[in-house]
């Protein structure tokens, strides 16, 4: 799981495997966003799930949100070597504007 002041977590898997990353957050949020950051690039939004949704799918990505436990997960099915990146979750409170980012999960997919 990512959050708080923990160091970056790392996962290493083989191409074709499925993977799930977890994110816990501390304060109320109206939305959880998941970003992917490839080496040398800025983060890019890959999926967004709102507080009134329990699950969201986009291609090989699936995000879940459990507001009661203040946690979200991102699953990738049939991983590819090109999924190698750092994945961040980000949350926003009622006031908006100030997205708070988790510490990130580094995913390495071996071809």
């Amino acid at each position: 799981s990512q959050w708080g002041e923990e160091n970056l977590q790392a996962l290493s898997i083989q191409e074709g495997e499925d993977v799930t990353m977890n994110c816990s957050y501390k304060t109320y949020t109206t939305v959880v966003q998941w970003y992917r950051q490839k080496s040398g690039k800025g983060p890019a939004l890959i999926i967004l799930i709102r507080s009134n949704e329990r699950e969201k799918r986009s291609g090989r990505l699936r995000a879940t949100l459990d507001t009661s436990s203040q946690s979200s997960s991102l699953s990738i099915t049939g991983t590819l070597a090109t999924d190698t990146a750092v994945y961040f979750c980000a949350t926003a409170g009622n006031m908006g504007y100030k997205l708070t980012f988790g510490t990130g999960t580094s995913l390495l997919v071996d071809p």
Partner: protein
Amino acid sequence: GGIITQTPKFLIGQEGQKLTLKCQQNFNHDTMYWYRQDSGKGLRLIYYSITENDLQKGDLSEGYDASREKKSSFSLTVTSAQKNEMAVFLCASSTEDERLFFGHGTKLSVL
């Protein structure tokens, strides 16, 4: 589509030096952000701006100044570079529903 352009890509400074990082966006977004990313850590918000000439401090604003003279540009100044400081500074702009678009970053090294 649009793009976030950060200049310079690499910045090498001396201890105590004032250093300025620039960011341009052509999304016509109202809100812009500066984040700092340290190796193996998450993103921490330095400053954000919700409109031209507006500035809001983030969690890491001490030691930095910002300027938003035009809607399309947002600059960040490191007021006094710290010896051995090394980080990536990421600029972003956001849609009204708080989806962020990031630049590729400016990598700072202080000798």
